[in-house]
């Protein structure tokens, strides 16, 4: 093959490669984005009407947003989701941060096995977890309570905190602890004044992940939640299954905005992380 032909060949391959990647990225993003314009549909359809394509202002409307904000289903659901999500994130972040601190110590015995145990709620199929929890909490008389849901979501969110704080700690210089000790700081002071401020971005990232995990969780809510615990994902679930209406698309648009905000927050935190990892 001549040099010129080989050069053309390489360019062709490079363009094919980029085209393929563009297609994969479109596959990833387009389905998320298509929901947004459709949520402004004036008609109760899930597809673009001719009027929408002609950009006829009458074909576009805010009626589904008015329904979502006005009607008494989604706002209470938001309150319930926030209550469960923040309770779960609080427990998960406290316990997960402590555990990650312990795991980061070179003296920790059985590190790998303990880590695998703490991460296991994240990889266990949610249907199994939910089935087990529904037996467990109803045996305890805690079925259909906020307590059960907060505990359940906390244990599902804790692995995210352990992973993200551990990542922050992996760049942590343990000599700092020794230096603080030499300067007369006890363990608690060292933790509070030296270690926690340095790993704070990892802790907040973990907390956001734990909250987001709870905010999007539906199977455990289906299995152990009662009529009082109809969270946003629970309402979406029944909306998709039973009485599908473009209201769902308006809620979905809010949730996409929420996801973008979360992502921005996590990115911002990562830049603040002195070790540059998360």
């Amino acid at each position, binding site marked *: 093959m001549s040099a010129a032909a080989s050069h053309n060949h390489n360019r062709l391959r490079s363009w094919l490669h980029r085209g393929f990647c563009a297609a994969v990225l479109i596959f990833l993003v387009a*389905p998320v984005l298509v929901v947004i314009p459709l949520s402004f549909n004036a008609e109760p359809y899930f597809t673009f009407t001719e009027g929408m394509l002609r950009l006829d202002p009458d074909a576009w409307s805010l009626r589904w947003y008015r329904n979502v904000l006005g009607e008494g289903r989604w706002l209470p659901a938001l309150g319930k989701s926030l209550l469960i999500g923040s309770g779960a994130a609080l427990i998960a972040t406290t316990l997960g941060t402590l555990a990650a601190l312990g795991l980061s110590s070179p003296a920790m015995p059985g590190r790998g096995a303990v880590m695998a145990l703490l991460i296991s709620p994240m990889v266990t199929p949610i249907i199994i977890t939910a089935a087990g929890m529904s037996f467990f909490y109803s*045996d305890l008389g805690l079925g259909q309570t906020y307590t059960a849901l907060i505990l359940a979501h906390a244990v599902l969110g804790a692995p995210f905190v352990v992973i993200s704080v551990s990542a922050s700690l992996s760049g942590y210089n343990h000599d700092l602890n020794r230096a603080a000790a030499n300067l007369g700081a006890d363990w608690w002071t060292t933790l509070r004044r030296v270690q926690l401020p340095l790993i704070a971005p990892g802790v907040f990232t973990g907390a956001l992940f734990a909250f987001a995990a709870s905010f999007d969780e539906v199977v455990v809510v289906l299995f152990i939640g009662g009529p009082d615990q109809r969270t946003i994902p629970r309402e979406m679930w029944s909306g998709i299954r039973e009485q599908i209406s473009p209201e769902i698309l308006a809620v979905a648009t809010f949730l996409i905005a929420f*996801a973008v905000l979360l992502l921005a927050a996590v990115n911002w935190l990562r830049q603040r992380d002195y070790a540059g990892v998360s």
Partner: protein
Amino acid sequence: MAIALKRWNRQALLAVLLVAPLAIFVAVTFLAPLAAMLVRSVYQPAVAEALPETLAALAEWDGDSLPDEETFRIAGREFVALNERRALGSVATRVNRLESGMRSTLLGTARSLAADTPAASWREAMIAADADWGAIESWLAIRRAGEVITPRYYLNALDLDRGGAGEIVVRPEDRRIYVSLLLRTLLISIAITGICLLLAYPLAWLLAHARPQRAGPLLLLVLVPFWTSLLVRTTSWIVLLQNQGVINDLLVTLGILAEQQRLALIYNMTGTIIAMVHVLLPFMILPLYSIMRTIPERHMQAAASLGASHWQALRRVYWPQSLPGVAAGSLLVFILSIGYYITPALVGGRTGQLISSMIAYHMEQSLNWGLAAALGGILLLLVGTLFFIYDRLAGVDRMRLGG
């Protein structure tokens, strides 16, 4: 030396104390529920508690000929008493799972015995009320339903059953459901993992070796769907794929399809696979990306300058170095897909369901919790084994969240 050792011990103690709260929390709120489920898959005391005398009498019975008059009398009285307490229904449902027809036999017999208490032979009265009582199988079913520790849910979950003498037999073909569903779940998961790898590998490469200013925004395009609610993404696929949805409308408008040729893209296995690939793709891209970032691109150039073609360099130089990422991503996607529930439940319709849907069905609809627990136990064993391999191969402590 002694001081150093003492200090080491103190540090180890401190580390254990820090980890303990979460470890205990996981044990109580996660492992205990799993244990509760596994217990239910083999331990079913309900029938034994409801029919203690009948089961005691049947324990003496040889199982070859009909039970004696005494056993009939004890059983008949116990059925009537239970029915008066409205507790016979759940027992009858459990016996019915072992021998179909027994539910109506038990309830009907209890009613007619209560209306007309036999003056002479209970045996004749019961057989007159329902001929099933003249069949040995009915009594065997009651005796088996009374076993407190039982393998029957696991047998059921593996499409097996016990014959008259207690030997293990394969269920008749029309009643085999679960093994083929499990195999289908594994096959679909392998397919989804393969598709994800195929789509993710070139993209991860591009992300890993692009200039940082360009890789950053592209990575965001991967992370936005990753962060977006699963229910939102599932809704999007319904909007796109349904019969009157965006893609079908587009194909019809462009004249590629006629109005009546609209494609069935959702509420079947196609829908399940498309939506699951979309949901799981970032779990493949991100581990690949983080491994590929550590592979110097110079290696490919070096291979080329030594005369290797692009494909040779890719296969012999780049691919082996990227294998840790391939293994980590594939195992993660595979583990997540064999237990996936939400997406198949919403977009799978009747034919796109996986093993997890069966667990949900037995939990919520048929209320056969023992069987749900046994199916869960089998799935848990499978996932546990894969997670163990993943830990050995990739190390859970190196797991990262979203890039």
